[in-house]
Structures are given as structure tokens and as C-alpha cells.
């Protein structure tokens, strides 16, 4: 049973991806991770129930529990084929208002949790004879300056660098590491970053999930190891 783990599955790009993948013939089992039970249930309600779907309520800021979380998923499914690190957080502040707590909280969800999830998943993925895939959702904020978004944008720069590094480091295991950087996308997180923006005028989560689904499909073999910008021009 090909298994894919999706973090941040309760809202935004994570939800759109979970729904999209439930309608595609890529994975048999989808493991949805989110911290809000109601949001996860809303995602689940919109998914194709022909898939084996598991919902796990988990707050990724609890880093210490991640090894047990992943070993439990592996024990239950007997394999892990794909990890989608989509969960993210933002608390945009100017430098002089940015506390160390802000930096720590943002990095915990945006960098440290993906690192832990990847490390723990790779322990199992590396024995997959047909390889595996990891996809990290970064942001265009990680590649261009965004005054006032210090913790968020720098954390996204970190995940881009982590993705490129791991793409090389994990190549011998046939684990492909992808990184996508969406531009402005109508999510709850974007609302925090740009509260005055009309969400209907910008890219929708489904447009990002469409790209993610293409990247994690079996046919895609050439786009790993680079930061792929997803941006709707008009």
C-alpha cells in the first residue's frame, strides 16, 4: 500500500493537496496530519473515500514526539513512500518587534519539524527498493527580501537550502527531494502576511496542489533538487 504523509492537511495548500491526491491513482494510503480536529474533518469530508485515509491530530511544535509519530505510521502501514511538508506558520513582525520566541516558534514549525519528519521518514524510506519522495513547501518569501517578515522569510530560505542539500545527500537511496515556493496564494497563512489583500485575486491552493500532485506522481523524475517557483502571473 503506497503511503503518503501530508502535514498541514487541515487547511490551505495541505487540504487542497489531500483532496487532490484522494482523486488520483498515485497513493493507496493518505495520512493526514493537522493540529485542529475540526479542520481535518472538513478536509476528510471533501476527500474521495475510495482511498485509505488516516487522520492524525498532532501539533508539529511538539518536536520530541515526531520519532514516535513516524514509527507509529510506519508500523501501521509497513511503508512510507512520500512525505509532504506543507504545514507552516507565520507571525510577521518588523525586526525591532521580533522576539526570540517569534523566531523559535516560526522555525520550530517551518524548519525543525520538517527536519525531524524527514530524518525519521528517511530511516524507513531508505529501504524502499523503488525509492521515495519528499516535498517541502517553501515560499517565494524565501528567495526575495520581505521587510517585516523576518522570521517567516528566513525560515523559508532555510527550508529551500535544506531541500537542495538533502536532494544530494539522499540521492543514493533513490529518495527524490522536491522544493516548491508558491507565490501569493489564498490561504489563512497568507491572510496573516497580507491582511488587506483580496484572496480571490491571487493564486488558489488548488493551483499549487495541482503542481504538487504532478511532482509526486511516478512519472515525474527530473525536477527534484531545485526550488520550483509556483506563481500565477495573471
Amino acid at each position: 500500500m503506497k503511503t503518503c504523509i501530508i502535514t498541514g492537511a487541515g487547511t490551505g495548500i495541505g487540504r487542497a493537496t489531500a483532496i487532490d491526491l484522494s482523486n488520483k491513482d498515485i497513493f493507496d494510503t493518505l495520512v493526514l496530519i493537522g493540529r485542529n480536529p475540526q479542520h481535518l474533518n472538513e478536509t476528510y469530508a471533501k476527500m474521495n473515500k475510495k482511498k485509505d485515509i488516516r487522520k492524525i491530530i498532532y501539533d508539529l511544535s511538539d518536536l520530541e514526539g515526531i520519532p514516535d509519530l513516524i514509527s507509529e505510521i510506519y508500523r501501521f502501514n509497513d511503508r512510507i513512500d512520500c512525505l509532504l511538508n506543507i504545514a507552516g506558520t507565520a507571525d510577521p513582525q518588523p525586526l525591532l518587534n521580533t522576539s526570540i520566541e517569534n523566531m523559535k516558534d516560526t522555525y520550530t514549525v517551518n524548519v525543525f519539524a520538517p527536519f525531524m519528519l524527514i530524518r525519521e521518514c528517511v530511516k524507513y524510506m531508505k529501504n524502499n527498493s523503488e525509492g521515495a519522495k519528499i516535498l517541502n513547501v517553501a515560499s517565494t518569501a524565501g528567495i526575495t527580501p520581505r521587510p517585516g517578515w523576518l522570521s517567516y522569510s528566513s525560515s523559508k530560505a532555510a527550508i529551500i537550502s535544506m531541500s537542495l542539500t538533502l536532494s544530494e545527500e539522499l540521492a543514493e537511496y533513490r529518495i527524490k527531494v522536491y522544493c516548491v515556493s508558491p507565490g501569493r496564494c489564498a490561504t489563512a497563512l497568507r491572510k496573516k502576511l497580507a491582511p488587506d489583500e483580496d484572496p480571490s485575486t491571487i493564486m488558489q491552493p488548488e493551483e499549487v496542489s495541482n503542481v504538487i500532485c504532478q511532482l509526486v506522481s511516478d512519472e515525474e523524475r527530473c525536477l527534484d533538487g531545485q526550488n520550483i517557483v509556483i506563481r500565477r502571473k495573471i
Partner: protein
Amino acid sequence: MISFILLAGGNGSRMNQPVPKQYLLLAGKPVIMHTLERIDDIKDISEVIIVCNEKYHDLLNNYISSYMLRKKIVYADAGSTRQQSVFNGLKKVTSNLVIIHEAARPFVRKSDFELLINDEAENITYGIDIPFTVLKANNYINGTLKRDELINVQLPQKFNVSSLLMGHMKAIEDNLLFTEDASLLFHYGLGQIKVIKGNSYNLKLTEPMDLILGEIIYKEYFTGRD
């Protein structure tokens, strides 16, 4: 079933690094782990004997745990010579056949080990042609050698354990030192040794420059990346 001795007792003095070369990083992974990971799912290997200095046991145990290796691993003490290290490893072997490899040769594929295992011959070494001229000399040339009669001996090698142990005992009695085990076995006439053609990627990391070359070899030979 076959045992596997991994020689990791070198101190890496020629590398000019604070730790021996087998613990330096190659493509982001400790050199010794490249071999240990590749043999981990070879079913015919029943046990792995790592010959190393005791002070590195904790470090290795930590790596083995992190990389979730499944093979049974035991340690043997490194000797003051390579020959003594092999002998210490041989004393821990429980199978009739053994593969001997050295941690400083991380560019060996799983299939290269399997080729040794699946070959019916009991004593085998990898070897490659010598593309340069070798002469006998001290300060002056004092002899010639025919290049087409020579091979550059590479590890891994496979041996009959009883024969090799006997050879080592004789070498101790005779106070003779050999730089590798095909020479030792041949010297005492303890069995025919087959040569399988190796390849030039199987570089032994020795000098600092080898780590630079090693990164290139790894990308080309193991990941096929630009």
C-alpha cells in the same frame, strides 16, 4: 552464509585530520557508513566484524543506531599492523567464508560484494591492470617487472577462513608481514586465488586529495548527478 570483516583501524595520519579517514564525511555521510549501509540488506552476510580502535565504538554504535542498520555487528581490536588487525577479526568469524574489506574504500557497490559471494571460488581478490610502469629500485633501479604480469590488488576479497587463519598463524611463526591477504595465502600455498577484474572507481582514500576526488567519484558513480 558468509562473514564480513571491515577493517577500520587506520589512524589516517596521511589525511592530516583530527579523526581517521573512515569517520570523515563523504557526500554528507561518514566514510565507513557507505560500506555498512550497502551490505546491510545482503542476506548472505551473517555477521559484520568491524576491526577498529575501542575508542570509536561509541561513535560507531551511534551511527549504526541512527542509520538503523540491521546486521549483527561485533567489534575486534585493531592491531599494530594491518595483518594483526585482520587476524584479530578472523578470530571472531563464525562462518567458513569471509569477505575482507576496508572502510577507506567506500566506492564499492552492493553488486560487487554479491559477485564475490555468488562466485564458487573460495579465494578471490579484485584486481585491475597497472597502467604505468613499475620498477624495482632503492636509490637506483635494480630490476624490471613486466607490467602485463602484474595486477593492482583491490579489496574486497573473499577467503576460506580455515586456510587464511592457518596462513596467519604461519606468518606469525615466521615473523613475516604481508600488506594484504592474497599475498599471504599465496606465499604459503594455501589455495588458488581467483582474480576478478575491478575498476578504477574503487579508490582507497589515503591522501587529502582523495576526498576531493571522492566527492566527484561518488556523484558520478553512485548518483549519476551532474
